[in-house]
């Protein structure tokens, strides 16, 4: 009889995982979750949190993390055993929808100004971004979409005058009729 494990943890491939964590919205709960990640050396790519069910004092935290499958399973188990945590769901394992909101400020100066302004607007239209602020030499776009789209949009804008970005990090939800 041979054990099913022979490859040490280190040789495993690093994966990305989206976790939904339902917690009691009590003071300090976010510090607890963030502290777990820093204390045990886990990665956080993004973390979003907001109260979702006010009467029940429930908050929903979406964490995007990365690690080897062993580490990711360990993260889930560590989250799950915390006293204020109701549930931990691995959304990547299910069909799910992930969205992020970005506010992107571009400003145009210099000789290519009007050409850049046109291009910025064309790209915004192509990505379905809303123009939420404009001056004679700047725009602020609001883009909601998968993290990849946001990433591409920001990269394109870099070439035509990106000056500032604010991103929310991912919010995610499972597809279909069933709740988590």
């Amino acid at each position, binding site marked *: 009889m041979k*054990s099913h*494990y022979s490859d040490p943890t280190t040789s495993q491939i690093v994966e990305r995982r989206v976790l939904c964590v339902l917690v*009691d919205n009590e003071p300090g709960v976010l510090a607890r979750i963030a502290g777990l990640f820093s204390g045990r050396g886990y990665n956080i790519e993004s973390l979003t949190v907001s109260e979702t069910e006010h009467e029940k004092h429930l908050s929903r935290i979406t964490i995007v993390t990365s690690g080897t499958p062993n580490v990711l399973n*360990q993260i889930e*188990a560590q989250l799950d055993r915390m006293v204020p945590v*109701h549930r931990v769901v691995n959304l990547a394992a299910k069909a799910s929808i992930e969205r992020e909101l970005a506010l992107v400020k571009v400003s145009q100066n210099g000789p290519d100004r009007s050409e850049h302004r046109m291009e910025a607007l064309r790209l915004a239209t192509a990505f379905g971004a809303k123009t939420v602020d404009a001056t004679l030499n700047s725009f602020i776009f609001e883009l909601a979409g998968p993290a990849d789209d946001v990433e591409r949009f920001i990269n394109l804008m870099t070439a035509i005058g990106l000056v500032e970005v604010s991103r929310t990090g991912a919010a995610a939800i499972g597809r279909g009729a069933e709740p988590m």
Partner: protein
Amino acid sequence: MSETMTGAEMVVRALQDQDVQHIFGYPGGAVLPIYDALFQQNSVEHILVRHEQGAVHSAEGYARSSGKVGVVLVTSGPGATNAVTGLTDALLDSIPLVCFTGQVPTHLIGSDAFQECDTVGITRHCTKHNYLVKRIEDLPRIIHEAFYVARSGRPGPVVIDIPKDIQFASGTYLPPGDMIHKSYRPRTEGDSSRIEAAVAMMAKAKRPVFYTGGGIINAGPEASRLLREFAKLTGFPVTSTLMGLGAFPANSPQWLGMLGMHGTYEANLAMHGCDLMINLGARFDDRITGRLDAFSPDSRKIHVDIDPSSINKNVKVDLGIVGDCAKVLAEMVRIWKEKKYQPEAEALKGWWGEINKWRGRNSLGYARSKDIIKPQYAIERLYELTKDRNTYVTTEVGQHQMWAAQHFHFNEPNRWLTSGGLGTMGYGLPAAIGVQKAHRDALVIDIAGEASILMNMQEMSTAAQYRLPVKVFILNNEYMGMVRQWQELLHGGRYSESYSQALPDFVKLADAYHAHGIRCADPAKLDDAIREMIDYPGPVIFDCLVAKEENCLPMIPSGKAHNEMILPDFAGEIGDVIDAKGKQLV
């Protein structure tokens, strides 16, 4: 029945309702209302320690020897920060504690007030859970919940930080009800199909070993009883971690001794060579596994643990079962009997033959001496002279701790108390005080090192005040022996700062603490001296002068596998054993 009372009174009433008889604490400005409430009643006895770290270790000793929740009460700021080491110790060794800390009044929180510290922030990482009470309405629920969280699931320490204005405020007290927590629901029943699969694997095993840990002790005496029964039914060998000693009787022929870094040759080789490992309430700690990629390479592994995060954390197992050890063992025993399983007798005989060959190496052997007390000999004699008594042993941390684990034998659970996970020097004396408080008539011995004992020596005053006849048995080698041993192993014998210089005269110190002092350096006089210690009706400090440069063997050097142990008959230079990579490990 609800009643109106102050927050401080609620604390005391909740303690009564939680059936708490003893608490360990130290007063200060931010807990005065609670001390006042304690003053006005008689059912909860407060034991005044001499340092808050001592309070927490005492509560740990009390809890681990009695199976109850240990309770601590300290003031804000330095009171709370002094408790941190003890809380961390309890977290790593899964000891149920509730620690009340005073806090500055709510309107001053965040203002850097006198003796303010962010207690919930500081203790978040060293507690199972903690609470800051901001409203008097929440206080009774939080206290009862804290007791529930501390003792259920994988036990651990819980802190309740209570601002002083909340202690004065009045509100409605609620007695403990049925605890159904909103989010915290530890699983205690193991999955039955998995248990069945585990038992089927055991019935087919040819080279099995039970690897047991502190989880059996935490699951209560019934778990130890079931382990004995199951071991008898199967005939399998049993080894245990440092934390699990006593769950299985050391006088059983199936007992292999402790495993791990300073475990026996037979226990470690059985772990290395087994085809089925049955881990019951242990956590594959690095002191146990040694080099991970060479850990028990040919075995299938079953792991029973109440904490799901322990399963597959360090070692990937073939079958994990989340549940309380007592409940899972009861199921295992039932299924084994019901299915009329029989162990693989022929194969087991061969396995025991191998084990007995390893036993023949006598890995706990040592060179005896007529002139000087060998530390192992001192423990052997201490065991022989106390084994027929109602004895509890605590330890400090170092070589003496490992010698105690190797040479003092435990046949019952809850009799052995040591700081395993954190390795806290200074644990033993306050823990012994806690044990003695829970077991007035028992013989309680702290097996100590001369360096460790100085870390919480002040607690001798506590022992004197409460007439707790604890015996401090110091293996005095004039070295931080374990540090010295590692310096010999790793750093060419350059004993940097590990010599115990300017030691106090422990006999005089005993006198100063209203205790009895004994010194012994002669092996021929040791038995009489130990008897004198046992017979003395009060606390004793026994300064046992032992061989100074003895190494604690056997040993799995860091970075090595179980089958690469250094045995006592090793002839080479131990400084040559560990390679550069191993030297980086702890």
